[in-house]
């Protein structure tokens, strides 16, 4: 007790150094914490990369590879016909995203720029689909795709994503169009544009960042989707990359080097998109979350 009050008294006498010491101490503490978290966050990824380039003897015996062995990539590439599954995923993702962008841009524009009775109610009805989890429509969607002959097809899988993806994208595009000045449209109308002209010549060119956001967020979501793709596609050759790797685990359970290589190959396209468009992606996420 005495010692503590003595410490306080003396500390007050040398106020400035104490503040500086505290500052340096807390700075160091912050950095140490952040670096520890960084290690935890990065470790699994680093381990995956290291494992993918080890030869099979080293996989379980040493953390660092003694030499780089790229044959694992070749092994998984050929073993599960990886290019085919990557192309499947690419097809599903692009088809969905193209439809979603067209449909959601038009609808988002109306909700941002038109006025009519019942608009708000209609908007909430439309984006209400955001609240519906995939499980809630899994079984009827399975039956529906079966009845129209699109079960076990990539096009059918792509269609199954449309509802949720369109709802969220309308929400994003509406916020984006609302951020553009209203006067632009009025100027276009004075210049003799009709409603379609205003949309096509005035707003659509300006909407490119909004469209890019929708493209990135939806590409990532659909590329990464697992439940629908694992359920609606049964023939091995038509599986998406996510489902194909899941299948491969059964067959290559102990070939960690090959599996790690497969995971990395599945990540390359999406990580590339992310790295190129990272700013847009993060802005889109936070805009979707914060501005609404």
């Amino acid at each position: 007790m005495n010692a503590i009050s003595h410490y306080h008294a003396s500390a007050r006498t040398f106020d400035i150094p104490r503040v500086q010491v505290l500052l340096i101490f807390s700075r160091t503490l912050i950095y140490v914490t952040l670096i520890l978290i960084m290690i935890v966050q990065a470790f699994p990824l680093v381990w995956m990369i290291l494992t993918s380039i080890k030869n099979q003897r080293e996989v379980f015996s040493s953390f660092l590879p003694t030499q780089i062995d790229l044959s694992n990539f070749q092994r998984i590439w050929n073993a599960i016909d990886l290019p085919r599954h990557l192309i499947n995923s690419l097809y599903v993702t692009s088809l969905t995203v193209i439809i979603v962008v067209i449909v959601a841009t038009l609808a988002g524009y109306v909700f941002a720029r038109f006025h009519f009775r019942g608009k708000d109610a209609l908007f909430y009805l439309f984006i209400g689909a955001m609240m519906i989890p995939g499980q809630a429509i899994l079984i009827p969607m399975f039956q529906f795709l079966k009845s129209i002959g699109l079960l076990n097809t990539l096009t059918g899988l792509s269609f199954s994503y449309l509802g949720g993806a369109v709802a969220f994208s309308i929400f994003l595009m509406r916020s984006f169009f609302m951020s553009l000045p209203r006067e632009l449209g009025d100027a276009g109308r004075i210049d003799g544009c009709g409603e379609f002209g205003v949309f096509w010549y005035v707003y659509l060119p300006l909407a490119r960042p909004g469209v890019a956001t929708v493209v990135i967020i939806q590409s990532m979501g659909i590329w990464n989707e697992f439940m629908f793709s694992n359920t609606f596609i049964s023939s091995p050759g038509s599986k998406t990359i996510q489902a194909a790797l899941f299948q491969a685990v059964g067959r290559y359970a102990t070939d960690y080097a090959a599996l790690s290589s497969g995971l990395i190959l599945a990540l390359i396209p999406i990580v590339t998109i992310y790295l190129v468009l990272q700013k847009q992606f993060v802005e889109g996420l936070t805009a979707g979350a914060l501005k609404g």
Partner: protein
Amino acid sequence: MTQTRHPDPGLPAALRRNWPAIVFLSPAAIVLLVFMAIPMANSIVLSFQSWNGMSAPVWVGLRNYRALFGDRLFLIALGNTAYFTIVTVILQTTLPLLVACLLNAGIRGGVLFRTLYFMPVIISLAISGLLWAMIYEPNFGVLNEFLRSIGLGGLTQLWLADRRTVMPSIIAVSIWQSLGFYLVIYYAAMQNIPGELYDAAKIDSANALQRLWHVTVPMLRPVIVLVVVLNTINGIKVFDQIWVMTAGGPNHASDTLGTYLYSTSFGAMGSSNPQLGYATSIAIVILVLSFILSIVQIRLGRRQEIEY
């Protein structure tokens, strides 16, 4: 667009005036009707039926729902879902907030940390599940290897094969994966808090924790509500990572509503007895739970003005 110019001119005129809106909206309306509303309606109907997917469905009224509460496996799945949701909501709301505060404390290299923390977000739940299944593997997985190598061999576990450790292990993956996402949301919102508030708090000699509690948290209230809602929805419907890592095992110790639904319908497909009506009633439970809980949370968070 011109609603105020004329007194209500009646429906045909309204249609004529709004026809561009109608044209623009119809593709979305068709998509949402065909790929969301109709399947959803079918789900509701199906949940009152008994159906094996082959013969004609039989109307059974509330029997599926009543059966749920006598089904031991459903109750286990419900309990595990509650466990997963409560723990992830608490940890995935608070941890990213604390890390965002550290990043916001005026240090250098914040962008680098933020980018690295974010990397797991890009990876799909299925792939991160596969990756972590390798890490958790009891015999040669790197986690147990690591524990043995630093002399803590006594702490090694059958992470995903032991009913006591399986849920915490899965939850750890969820935290690892989502930290960057919520961090970025918090961090962006923090940039909008006026610096004067912190200066004022400092003048009142509030320490860092007090500033967090009395300035940051109240200012971030709408965002915190949003993060809680997102975490709740994700928790109630959790499926991918669990299916990939354990498929609900060992002996249902990690079964959630999502995985139980799946094994009741598609997991059992081709085997003896797919119960599509029963499985759909589980889907409706998931839907209703996530709906009610998000409404409650949004209402509770509404003391300050939030616009969604």
